[in-house]
């Protein structure tokens, strides 16, 4: 109630409406949608800025201008509370091992770009260039520098670096996001290498076995942690791939709000793919009453879209606290075991 009044007061202030005060393009270059709620955003940001400032001071004390960091309990705690944007590239590179790879392989990125290109790969990548973040000003052809060219380079280099994967739709969004944050092609390339090569199972290879496995693993976890939702999925005959494939393939890009995705990625680079399950389980657990209302398959699909919007996911700081409490314990051992079981099941079904 009090919050509402505060917002109303601000709206009526001498400085115009929230829409006049808040930029129509967000800090990452994304244009805000036509129905963007500027008032709620301003209200949320006034609180989040306090957190950001506090965290920024703590981080600058921790780093003290150092360009190297050691993984330890304290750093993990700091990462969970959010990496300030100016240190994001540094911490992602260090935590994921991408920095080590970059240093061990000087010139590798450039040599991939200089080599002869597979025309098929070039064509596939080109198909998606105009379809990657058309709502981001940095990807416009008129923008200088234009991230579209950088996006092409990173995807092309990665496709040649890892020919077993080549290019898979969804990688365009990941590379694009990395470029927005690092503003550096080579770093983005090595972060792609860390994600696809070490952090994630094989989501993007032609058989997409890792993706299929993790979708089933999520199903198994929901069965234990939120059995009512699992029952709805069974009753309405909904395959998990239908509702969560984008969550895994795009690592929540364009599924959840940008700021929330960045906070998830902070933990993803530090702690690994387990985080993706924590996010999914939190969304499902928190909204189980809504999902249970679904009367049909389209209803279920609709509810899974609906739960990725709204204050619960917009308030990224609280949301990130919730992902470590709401789904309960989730050990890597459990995940490894479930992955093995589900993978064996899928292989058996497909053969």
């Amino acid at each position, binding site marked *: 109630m009090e919050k509402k009044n505060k917002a109303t007061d601000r709206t009526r202030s001498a400085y115009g409406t929230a829409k006049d005060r808040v930029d129509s393009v967000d800090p990452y270059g994304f244009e805000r949608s036509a129905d963007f709620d500027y008032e709620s955003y301003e209200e949320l940001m006034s609180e989040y800025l306090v957190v950001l400032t506090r965290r920024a001071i703590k981080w600058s004390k921790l780093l003290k201008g150092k360009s190297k960091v050691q993984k330890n309990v304290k750093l993990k705690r700091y990462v969970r509370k959010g990496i300030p944007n100016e240190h994001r590239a540094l911490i992602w590179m260090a935590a994921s091992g991408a920095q080590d790879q970059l240093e061990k392989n000087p010139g590798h990125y450039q040599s991939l770009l200089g080599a002869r290109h597979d025309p098929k790969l070039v064509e596939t990548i080109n198909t998606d260039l105009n379809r990657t*973040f058309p709502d981001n000003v940095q990807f416009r052809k008129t923008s200088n520098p234009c991230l579209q060219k950088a996006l092409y380079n990173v995807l092309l280099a990665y496709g040649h670096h890892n020919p077993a994967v080549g290019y*898979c739709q969804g990688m365009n969004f990941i590379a694009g996001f990395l470029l927005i944050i690092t503003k550096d092609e080579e770093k983005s390339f090595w972060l792609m290498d860390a994600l696809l090569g070490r952090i994630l199972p094989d989501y993007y290879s032609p058989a997409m076995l890792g993706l299929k496995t993790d979708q089933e693993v999520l199903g198994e976890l929901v069965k234990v942690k939120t059995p009512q939702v699992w029952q709805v999925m069974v009753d309405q005959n909904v395959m998990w791939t239908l509702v969560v494939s984008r969550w895994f393939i795009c690592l929540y890009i364009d599924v959840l709000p940008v700021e929330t995705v960045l906070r998830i990625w902070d933990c993803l680079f530090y702690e690994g793919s387990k985080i993706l399950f924590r996010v999914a389980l939190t969304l499902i657990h928190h909204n189980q009453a809504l999902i249970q209302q679904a009367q049909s398959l389209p209803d279920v699909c609709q509810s899974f879209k609906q739960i990725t919007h709204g204050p619960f996911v917009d308030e990224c700081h609280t949301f990130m606290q919730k992902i470590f409490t709401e789904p309960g314990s989730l050990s890597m051992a459990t995940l490894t075991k479930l992955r093995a079981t589900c993978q064996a099941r899928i292989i058996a079904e497909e053969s």
Partner: protein
Amino acid sequence: MSRKKAAKGKAVTNSPSAGSPTGKGAGKAARSSPGIVQMNGVVHPSRPSISSSSEFYDIAFKVMLVGDSSVGKTCLLVRFKDGAFLAGSFISTVGIDFRNKVLNIDGVKVKLQIWDTAGQERFRSVTHAYYRDAHALLLLYDVTNKTSFDNIQAWLTEIHEYAQQDVVLMLLGNKADATHDRVVKREDGERLAKEFGVPFMETSARSGLNVELAFTAVAKELKHRSIKDPTEKFKLQEYVNKEMKGVGCCRS
């Protein structure tokens, strides 16, 4: 920063009717697909708003859009659903998504639940599980992309393997407005369609050419099959040939 839940989608969908005009069945309430934000004639993909409106219908069918990456599946669907073209403001479809539209076919409210799929080959192993429930498949190629046309045979093989035997199938040569970039002649499309015995037409999501017709023809065929009215004769190919428009002229 919760997004306002203004019912933007409602303005562009059919207004909910009070009941079934045919008097058959009570008419089920169903949710519409996520809202499309339309302003200044430009349509943005469904990133922000979720709207749910109740629409009544008598019969419902599942239609799937398939074909190579970037042949225009999403644009065709948005043109049909909202009557607008997604000029440069759409993103690659990852995975699978759907939108609903209710059509009035000879007094019967037919709901099409239209599934839009990722075109890249590796996604087929994820999406073909859905073929078996589809009542109709619209198979698209791009008249400006020879490869997408050459891949039609592979798509048909895939469809025969995974879809139902009696699935309604139609071949569409999309982007027919792009006269300068065209590399696949209409005759080539016709020949291929004839060879495989499927109805064919050229469409353009940009200009709207035959878009409504493609979906209406499928809806008519499905309605005809499900109601089995002996007084009514319907032949999909004949209907399509009669109603189809050519590119840039009034071929009838």
